[in-house]
């Protein structure tokens, strides 16, 4: 694994959730190569190596995307649609992190090919546990197909 390879792309606009998620990943020793995007547009720029990330190789990951649905500019659903709609990126596992199941677009997420879907619990310990478990699972157990 190359050092400059980004392992986790965390797409989150809420600074509180962002900090808690980063902390949970750090505690689970998964925080080495995290790229943060604060809205959908930033996320797409990174994933498709465009804008600020021009020159990066699309093929270089990330290995997992943690995606909030409610995002400024371009929402999470649209990011998911683009990622799963492009043959270069559709193998990247996407885990949707959202505030609740009340969202009408849970079904839509599954239709678009989301790999996991988790509701951020109010309970801090459970949130931390959920984030680290997810990170572990997709980073360690789910080896990407060899190219």
């Amino acid at each position, binding site marked *: 694994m190359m050092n400059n390879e980004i392992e986790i792309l965390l797409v989150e606009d809420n600074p509180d959730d962002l900090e*808690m998620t980063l902390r949970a990943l750090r505690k689970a020793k998964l925080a080495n190569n995290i790229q943060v995007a604060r809205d959908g547009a930033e996320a797409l720029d990174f994933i498709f190596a465009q804008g600020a990330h021009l020159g990066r190789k699309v093929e270089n990951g990330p290995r997992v995307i943690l995606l909030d649905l409610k995002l400024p500019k371009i929402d999470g659903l649209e990011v998911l649609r683009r990622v799963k709609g492009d043959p270069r990126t559709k193998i990247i596992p996407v885990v949707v992190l959202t*505030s*609740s199941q009340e*969202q009408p677009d849970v079904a839509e997420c599954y239709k678009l090919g989301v790999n996991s879907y988790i509701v951020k619990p109010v309970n801090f310990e459970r949130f931390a546990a959920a984030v680290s478990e997810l990170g572990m699972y997709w980073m360690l157990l789910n080896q990407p197909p060899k190219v």
Partner: protein
Amino acid sequence: MAADQQLKESLKELHDLKAALDEHSIVAITDSQGKITYVNDKFCSISRYSRDELLGQDHRLINSGHHPKEFIRDLWSTIARGKVWHGEIKNKAKDGSFYWVDTTIVPFLDDQGKPRQYVAIRTDITGRKHFEEAQERLVAIINSSDDAIVGKTLDGIITDWNPGAEELFGYTAAEAVGKPMTLIFPPELINEEAGILAGIARGESVKHYETVRVRKDGRRVEVSVTVSPILNHAGKIVGASKVARDITDRKRAQAQILQLNADLEARVVRRTAELEAANKELEAFSYSVSHDLRAPLRAINGFAGIVLEEYGSQLPDEGRRYLERVRNGGQRMGELIDDLLAFARLSRQLLNRQPVNTGRLVQEVLEELNPPGNKRQVETRMGELPACQGDPALLKQVWTNLLSNAIKYTCGRTPAVVEIGCEQNNGQKIFFVRDNGVGFDMQYANKLFGVFQRLHRADQFEGTGVGLAIVQRIVHRHGGRVWATAEPERGATFFFTLEKEHHDEQ
């Protein structure tokens, strides 16, 4: 001899004449007192009396009672004065039937000029009378009809015009008869008449044709018209009858109904749209509550947790305790929001009714709530649980809430016993969950199923007070009923049904 011969011939002629008369007429002779002195065979056969029964009687014997006294008095005074009377009389035969005779009574006078006898010659006109009566009835019917009944020739010239037509179209019969039918046609429909007349000439009828006609005063009336050919005896079409009915009111009522229906339809569409909008709003509200309210809660809870975790050791005990309370408060609020949302979701969720194996479902719930090897063990006694019809996921929620309550409120009992079963009442399945826990005072039973209603203090038994409200909503959505009986410190029993009660057999 010649005189004798002449007399003989004269008598013969008289005899022939009488024979011919008897053949054609009903003949009777009465004396000056009115007593019958002679009747011919025809008189007997039409009156159905024998000659013996008639002779010596007067004409009251065959009086029908039809004619007024003045009529009879006029007859008698005429013939008593030696004048011939002519008229039509209705008589009654012996068998009670009536017959009409066209009558001529000729008085014959004596030397003093007083009537000596009366010779009455009559002709049976019963058939004609019956026909006339029938015709009178028809005329009366036509005249009393509310419908306009009109006759016209094949050229469309009005020949008959009943009072109904006078009323409907405003023209009197005198004004209408002789005029063309188009008198009452609106200008734009004048052409209709040619088509109708052509059809009639071919023997076709027009039935309940709805059109418009114009009254004498210029007002338009909506009419339903039936036009039929009139045939003469030989079966030849000689004209047409037209029956027109005023349907203005009916048309107006019809239009009103259509308007009302359209209004109703529009109102339904409007209300549905309003409801849909309200529903959308509610959904947006739920979304907002769940998403936007939970995010700051996560921050309160999360950062309080992080402070405790990272800097707990540097805080004084009291500070740590207060922070703990901040966290617990946040957590509790999170639970309340979740429960409330779950409760709200129940009303929107569609009921997926199917056969449910109750026994297996309860077993599953018990294994989750009271797994073997759990520190606190609850003794469960499960009776026979029949299968039922319902939404499996929702029913699981019902059993989970009832059983977790039973387990919660038996805390501290040794042994803690929870009994699950089903009673049959009037063919209805009544499921129940009985515990030997703390129970409650029945005077608060009405609060049991309200949202956020609790009968126990939070420091005694934790909970949000939504569980039983959820149970009640699910049971109601299945068409059933839920209730409870209890006594403080002596346990509680919760009962529920899943179908509408039927009071008759089975």
